[in-house]
C-alpha cells in the first residue's frame, strides 16, 4: 500500500508562512531549497515534530508559465477567501493546545467547544487557510 507523504497548501508569502508555521504553530522545517534552474522555485515543507513522515508543502502561487495570470489571480482570491484548503489537526487535549498556541500568537477564529465528536477549535494561517484542532472523543458505550 501507500502512505501520504506531503500535501500542499497555497500560501500568500513563503517567509510569512514559514514564520507562522514554525514560530507560532511549532512545526519544524523539513526542507527549504531554492532552485535557480527552475525560476527560483522554492520547495518549502514543514511538519509536526512528532510526526516525521508527514509534511505540508508551503507553496507560493506561481505566475506564467506555470500558471496563467488569470488562474493565478483566481487561486490567490480563493486562498484569501478561505476556500483553498483546510488542515485537520488532532490533539490529546484541545484546551491545552489552544492555550499554548494562543500564547504563541495564533489568533483563533473559534474557541474550544464541545461537540458530539469531541472538543474542537479553529484558526487560520496568515494566508487564510483554515485549521481545525480536534480532540476526538472516546466512544463511550451505553
Amino acid at each position: 500500500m501507500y502512505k501520504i507523504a506531503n500535501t500542499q497548501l497555497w500560501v500568500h508569502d513563503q517567509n510569512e508562512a514559514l514564520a507562522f508555521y514554525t514560530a507560532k504553530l511549532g512545526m519544524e522545517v523539513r526542507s527549504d531549497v531554492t532552485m535557480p534552474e527552475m525560476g527560483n522555485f522554492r520547495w518549502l515543507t514543514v511538519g509536526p515534530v512528532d510526526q516525521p513522515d508527514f509534511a505540508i508543502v508551503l507553496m507560493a502561487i506561481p505566475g506564467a508559465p506555470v500558471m496563467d495570470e488569470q488562474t493565478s489571480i483566481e487561486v490567490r482570491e480563493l486562498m484569501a477567501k478561505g476556500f483553498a484548503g483546510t488542515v485537520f489537526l488532532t490533539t490529546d487535549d484541545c484546551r491545552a493546545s489552544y492555550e499554548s498556541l494562543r500564547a504563541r500568537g495564533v489568533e483563533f477564529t473559534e474557541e474550544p467547544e464541545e461537540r458530539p465528536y469531541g472538543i474542537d477549535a479553529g484558526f487560520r494561517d496568515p494566508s487564510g487557510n483554515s485549521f481545525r484542532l480536534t480532540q476526538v472523543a472516546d466512544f463511550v458505550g451505553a
Partner: protein
Amino acid sequence: MPQIPIARHLLRAKDLADARYAEPLDVAALATAAGLSQAHFSRAFRKAFGESPHAYLLTRRLERAAALLRKTDNSVADICVAVGLTSIGSFTTSFKRMFGCTPSVYRASFPPAAAFARVPACVVRAYSRPVLRTFREDEIAERPIPSAPLTPNLGGRHVQDRKHSAVGA
C-alpha cells in the same frame, strides 16, 4: 511580499460574524474588522462571497438559532437573544422566510431535545426514583385496602420534565 488580497480582509470580517454572532454585532463592526468603510465593505463583501454582509450575519444567526431549537428546550425568545437578535417579531419573520415555517413548528418537526441529552445514568436514577407511597397501610384498620395499581408513581414532576427524561435510563 505580495500585496495582501482584499479578500483576506473580508475573510476576517466573515470569521468575526461566525465567531461573535451572539454579540450585538452589526455591519459597521464587520467593516471595521476588515478595515474598510461600510459602503466599500458591503460592495466588496458581496463581490467576494456572493451575498451582503448583512445577509451573511443574519443567516449565520438563523442557522445557530435552528441548531438551538433542535438541541435545547430553551424558549424561542431566549434563543432569539442568544444568537444576537433583539426583536422576536423580526426573528420569527426572518426564520419563517428562510426555513419555511415558524421556529416552533421547526422545533416540533424534530425529535425533542431531551432525546439527545446525555444525562448520566446515575442522574437519571437519582431523579426518576418515585417518592415512597405507603398505600396508607397505617389507615388500613379504619378503611378498606385501596385498589391502586402496584406501579411506581410515573407522573412525578422529574420524569415529566424534558430536561431530565433522558436516554440511558
